[in-house]
């Protein structure tokens, strides 16, 4: 794999935690905490695609929303070009915000139903004072739409007049119109049909090559993540359990959860027979205090130590990080 040491770090997440308070229905009962993210640290290099995989409730969406500042972290910092996002002043903050954009999962709800495509795109430019006049912004909105494969006939359409794939293109055009450096893609294709998925993924790659963008690509679809990512983070119950290059993780998964996840993928042909690493039961609830490894209850290799301590991410050589006592 490419030597990551010489590459520039564009974003850095340090010991990020995010808790949500669950308001109890019963009177006088103490508040409960939902630990969506616990002690997450990683770096994002300029120009790479960082894939984040996990099942529902693993905190991957919360992580994405923290990166674009929709959620304020409970503790920990997020650095963009070595500066803490939450301690920036007004104009710097706005500039940083402009540079980190997001594409949402559901193309049907992420556009204002009462605004045309051109309005949505031009508005993004307007709030960042891009473009001299409304006319110029309109022209640049058209260019952005053309870049994502739509044309002039789509300018004055309302969201419900687009198909799912086209809406996601409009979302991408809006993000691109303000020239961000990093785009966080939160399951951007999982609501789309297979043939449309491929179109949108190709579009993502094309734009990345042309504009030298950095992607954080969140998905539960392992095939897509592997295809598009350079490095992959695997998350489970709010923690990173494994992090390595995309190729490396598929060839040599270390963490028991990664192994189970990979073996649970439906086969690629009717002839393929895969040996299964099965996990018992369901993902435990992220509510309340955690003790021990989050996977302890389901792991086939669970040891006594796993129930007592939380394993930390450790380098297993060549930058292959995993959080499991089996490798200590």
């Amino acid at each position: 794999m490419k030597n990551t040491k010489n590459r520039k770090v564009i974003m850095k997440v340090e010991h990020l935690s995010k808790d949500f308070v669950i308001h109890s229905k019963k009177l006088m009962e103490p508040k409960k905490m939902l630990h969506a993210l616990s002690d997450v640290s990683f770096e994002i290099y300029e120009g790479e695609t960082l894939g984040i995989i996990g099942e529902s409730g693993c905190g991957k969406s919360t992580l994405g929303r923290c990166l674009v500042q929709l959620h304020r972290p409970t503790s920990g910092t997020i650095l963009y070009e070595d500066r803490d996002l939450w301690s920036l002043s007004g104009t710097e903050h706005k500039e940083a915000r402009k540079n980190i954009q997001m594409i949402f999962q559901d193309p049907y709800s992420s556009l204002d139903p009462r605004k045309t495509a051109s309005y949505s795109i031009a508005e993004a430019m307007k709030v960042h004072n891009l473009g001299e006049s409304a006319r110029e912004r309109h022209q640049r909105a058209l260019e952005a739409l053309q870049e994502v494969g739509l044309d002039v006939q789509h300018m004055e359409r309302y969201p419900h007049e687009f198909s799912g794939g086209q809406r996601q293109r409009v979302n991408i055009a809006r993000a691109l119109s303000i020239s961000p450096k990093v785009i966080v893609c939160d399951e951007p294709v999982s609501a789309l049909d297979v043939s449309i998925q491929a179109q949108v993924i190709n579009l993502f790659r094309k734009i990345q090559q042309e504009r030298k963008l950095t992607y954080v690509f969140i998905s539960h679809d392992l095939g897509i993540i592997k295809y598009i990512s350079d490095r992959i983070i695997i998350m489970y119950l709010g923690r990173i359990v494994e992090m390595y290059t995309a190729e490396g993780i598929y060839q040599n998964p270390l963490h028991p959860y990664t192994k189970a996840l990979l073996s649970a993928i439906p086969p690629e042909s009717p002839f393929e027979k895969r040996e299964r690493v099965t996990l018992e039961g369901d993902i435990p609830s992220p509510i309340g205090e955690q003790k021990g490894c989050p996977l302890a209850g389901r792991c086939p290799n669970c040891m006594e130590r796993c129930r007592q301590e939380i394993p930390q991410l450790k380098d297993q050589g060549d930058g292959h990080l995993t959080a499991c006592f089996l490798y200590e």
Partner: protein
Amino acid sequence: MNGNDVILKVEGLKTYFYQASGVTKAVDGVSFTLKQGSTMGIVGESGSGKSVTSSSVMRLMPSKTAKIVEGSITFDGVDLLKLSNKDLLKFRGDECCMIFQNPMTSLDPVFKIGHQMVEMIREHQNISKKEAWDRAVEALKLVGIPEAEKRMEAYPHELSGGMCQRVIIAMAVCGHPKLIIADEPTTALDVTVQAQVLELLKELQDRLHTAILLITHNLGVVWQMCDTVMVMYAGNTVEYADTKTLYQEPMHPYTWGLLDSMPKLSSSSKEALTTIPGTPPDLRLTGRCCNFYNRCPYVKDICRQSVPPLVEIKPGHFVACHRQNGQNRLIRGEVNAHEEYEE
């Protein structure tokens, strides 16, 4: 029991929706047969008519707008389209069951699991409450729910998605149906839970010898579960074959596109994915020619002129493509530029 008995036969099914804005041809010519104890997959994109096909079989359609215009559905020798409402109710519970995509919404949130299961069982079998209760517990144990007695007292929101889907499967198998229709049963579930549920379905099928009609958009699930598979596009059957044949020798250009557009885990290629250009047609405008013509790289004059019939090219392998039933068959991936724009 003879394993080759045909349990469900659908021929030339056409289901249209009559709306103010026009007639939507949701299903416009679908034919297949399903053998006892086997699993058939229906794959297609959203709007391809796969769900409408299954609800047509169950006759679960809004009676005001939807109408089965043509075709026949025969289940175990009985013409389903001629059944009275009373017989239909019996058919739905006893002979055939349905599992839906979202397990959370297919259970009634205000009643306990046990109550719902007992109601359901007593609806179709004339037994006492106590017996029905025991049977429900048994069914829950069968689908691998731990502490089944305790779960009977739980409300649906207290269970996880995977557990709910198991409960629904348990309800489905209570009456020992001959056919289970599963409409995207694992789409709402996580990968590891999906694997568990699919395995459970397979295990139950082996034990109870039911036929399964599995509707999905995930080809991986098809490879794992199905004996035969039907590919649908814009309301039509475009290809129908047994799973291995379909994987090895797919014939329809749409099937090719579908197979190629999925990123492969095993390959480390970073080449651009093969895509099917364009979007599916509006279902109000289909039915005059091949519905795939505007996205097909192999399109010819004839494709714009008439609807391709579903032809049995090899035994058990049906394809609906004008360019595949003559002498000069197409070769996958070879688009002749000269041919392409020939008018």
